């Protein structure tokens, strides 16, 4: 059974957004369900900090055994930090998707866009 945390926002593409102390900054990663579907993650490619991402722009790729998938930015914003630990240990995405397996920190251009994302219940329904 995949873990769906009640304090996160979700997307249909299986990313999550986690709020921080700064109300315009969110941590983005992929959900527990997504990592389970992908299997063993062997590589994560992330953008440079300072990059401005448009809504639904590809911000990186993730590779599990044999399979590459694009990562989509669910809201517009600026990348202010990336998780460089994933260079050395991409399996953190599998072992701790909501913690050490986070991917980017995004300063969101319009925080009201976050409210348009899926709620935990909505995401639970989405993945059935």
């Amino acid at each position, binding site marked *: 059974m995949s873990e769906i945390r009640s304090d996160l926002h979700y997307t249909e593409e299986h990313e999550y957004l986690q709020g921080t102390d700064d109300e315009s900054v969110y941590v983005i990663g992929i959900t527990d369900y997504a990592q389970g579907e992908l299997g063993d993650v062997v590589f994560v490619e992330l953008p440079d900090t300072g990059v401005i991402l448009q809504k639904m722009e590809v911000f990186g790729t993730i590779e599990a055994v044999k399979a*590459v*998938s*694009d990562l989509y930015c669910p809201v517009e914003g600026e990348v202010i930090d990336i998780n460089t630990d994933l260079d050395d240990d991409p399996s953190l995405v599998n072992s701790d998707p909501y913690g050490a397996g986070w991917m980017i920190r995004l300063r969101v251009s319009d925080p009201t866009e976050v409210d348009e994302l899926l709620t935990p219940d909505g995401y639970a329904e989405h993945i059935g």
Partner: protein
Amino acid sequence: MVAPEISWRLIHDVPRSGPRNMALDHALAVCLPRNEGVLRLYSWKRPTVSFGRNEPAVGRYSEQVVCSTNFEYVRRPTGGRAVLHDKELTYSIVIPLRETVRPREIYEEINRTLAKALISLNAPVTLSKDRQCQPLSSGPCFQSPAAGEVTANGRKLVGSAQARIGGRLLQHGSILLDGDQSQLDGLFGDTSSRATSVTLRELVGATSPDFVARAVAVNLKGHLGGKWASVGYTHEEIETAGRLENERYNKTSWTWRK
């Protein structure tokens, strides 16, 4: 497995260059309508080494040796590790992704169907049960089978990889008819003489690509179901492939990006 309402297109293509082959596979995934699937069967104009989308190649494949070979080099849109495409039949399947379609299940089902096709040619193949996860830096694709891949006596006969591009899944792979993947091991600096791959020639004798293509097409059509037609590329697919070839697959900066 996929969806019975899908209309399928079979494209039995002519041999093309590495960049063109990768651009066409990618373009099919970009352009495919939501209710269509494609099976493309093809080969390569000249021996070509393809690297996986994220595989580290620079510094791992000896530049000196690379320059002295007559191989073409290209980087795939899909995952996995390096393959030497020479005497092989290559398949690619593009399908729309839906909530009910799980890429890992597709991977296993396609491999199972390919195994059935190869068994129909009297090749004694099975599916690998090896669950070990190999890092991207661990050498060429055919050095080790992944779980569910088609093998004979533990040696790999078919190597496949996937990419999710937009709302579509692309899976393509190499069915070795003949040739010697160990040439690639040498480029990688591995001089051991381990036999890790196997060819159809070793298993059943010489076979033509067309003969194998027919068996693969018959079995995949039977398994995937739906309506099938032998139709070529659309204008949009050709245009998109041209753009991808120029902007990505023909560029040294993409092939040797890492």
